[in-house]
């Protein structure tokens, strides 16, 4: 019952052309998700046509990350890209609807780590033990961009 999925690795500059081609085929945007790896940010774009998923994967370097927005091709991507900006500190160029960092109002800015602090510490220490990120000590409250 595994749902098949194929992941294609691309680079940032090819992103808009690839997305336009998928739009021509009639695929719809399913999700955009981001993961913070130790020294880069990994993005996954998922598209669907007739219940088959097509995924694009790209890696952004940890510093000076800028991502072109696909909101001119798919309007619904504004929500995903604003969320990625608010949680991961990835600057997105060309958003049609831009919240300028106010989409989620969190106490710690960029809770999933920003360029300055790869892993943000949670606000209160959890009862069951330490967090798994052992990198930079956290002085992340209100990190200035």
């Amino acid at each position: 019952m595994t749902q098949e999925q194929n992941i294609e690795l691309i680079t940032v500059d090819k992103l808009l052309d690839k997305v336009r081609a998928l739009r021509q085929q009639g695929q719809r945007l399913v999700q955009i998700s981001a993961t913070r790896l130790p020294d880069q940010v990994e993005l996954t774009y998922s598209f669907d046509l007739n219940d088959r998923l097509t995924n694009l994967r790209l890696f952004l370097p940890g510093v000076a990350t800028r991502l072109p927005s696909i909101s001119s091709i798919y309007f619904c991507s504004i929500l995903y890209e604003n969320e990625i900006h608010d949680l991961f500190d990835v600057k997105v160029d060309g958003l049609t609807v831009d919240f300028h960092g106010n989409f989620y109002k969190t106490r710690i800015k960029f809770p999933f780590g920003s360029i300055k602090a790869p892993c943000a510490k949670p606000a209160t220490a959890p009862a069951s033990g330490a967090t798994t990120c052992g990198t930079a000590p956290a002085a992340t409250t209100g990190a200035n961009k």
Partner: protein
Amino acid sequence: MSRTVIPFGPQHPVLPEPVHLDLVVEDEKVIEARPSIGFIHRGLEKLAETKDYVEFVYVAERICGICSFIHGQTYCQAIETIMDVKVPLRALYLRTVWGELSRIHSHLLWLGLMADGMGFESLFMHSWRVREKILNIIEATTGGRVIFGSCKIGGVRRDMDAETIKHILKEMDVIEQELREVTKVFLNDRSVKARLSGVGVLLKQEAYDLGCVGPTLRGSGVAQDMRKLGYAAFNDIPIEPITRSEGDCYARCAVRCEELFQSVQIIRQALAKIPDGEIAVKVTGNPNGETITRTEQPRGEVVYHLKANGTKNLQRFRVRTPTFANLPAMLKILPGCDLADVPMIVLTIDPCISCTER
């Protein structure tokens, strides 16, 4: 003509969960809607770094109170795909039955809220009265009314004996009769029709391009239902998605009413075919891998993207809930409608904001 900005929410009698809209209004017609969410962001995705993957089922279930069971089921399904665990067939059938019960209760809740949003309070009370019967079945079989707590990695935690199954089937007959009475009012009453027909029209191509899912998409004529992918017991129980072509609020309401009866049929079929056997397999070790799993919640398609790297904690837990995908549709329908239609349009996408913001 001067414009006024009217704030809608986060506290509003029609909203089940807090969302804020700034409506730019020109003499009772809405020109633009600016959304503002983030009131209920609990940071559940970050909790994956501290809770191990077995306990995380409890967190995944608590993302939402209305669609909680299917969140837990999708999480277990995703981990089972990564770890290549073969779940016994009886557990899959039980998960299907609970999932469909969850769908009936969620749709009845929405029908009640829709009636309440229109001002039709007695219909709201009757919808929730029928829902109480469903919640009693759920509590008798799983232990909880809202948070079921019955999915675990490798299967389910509780079984249903033959006596309970007979009782559920008898209750389903009574419930189906009562559902017919309630949905007859929703679909045939003139005042309900006047309030819902022609309001918030979403055309087929636009709905598909905006990335809508669930009854919002099916009400505009696109036949898409993730249950066709064949997860859980849906390999043996084929589903035909229910669609309507008009694309207005009435069509979406009608799709949900008809899905109630489809769910009753699925429960009857699943309980008739349920095989004997184990209800869970033992799972040891840590997950290592990545998967994207999709299931059908009452509100649409939910996507779980999990990455695991061989440790006890997941590297990334990402949920894309159906209301997140339906929000752009709401922002596109609102301009051009009357101010009095705004509650209907906001409710028609079935907003579950606590899912959206996790």
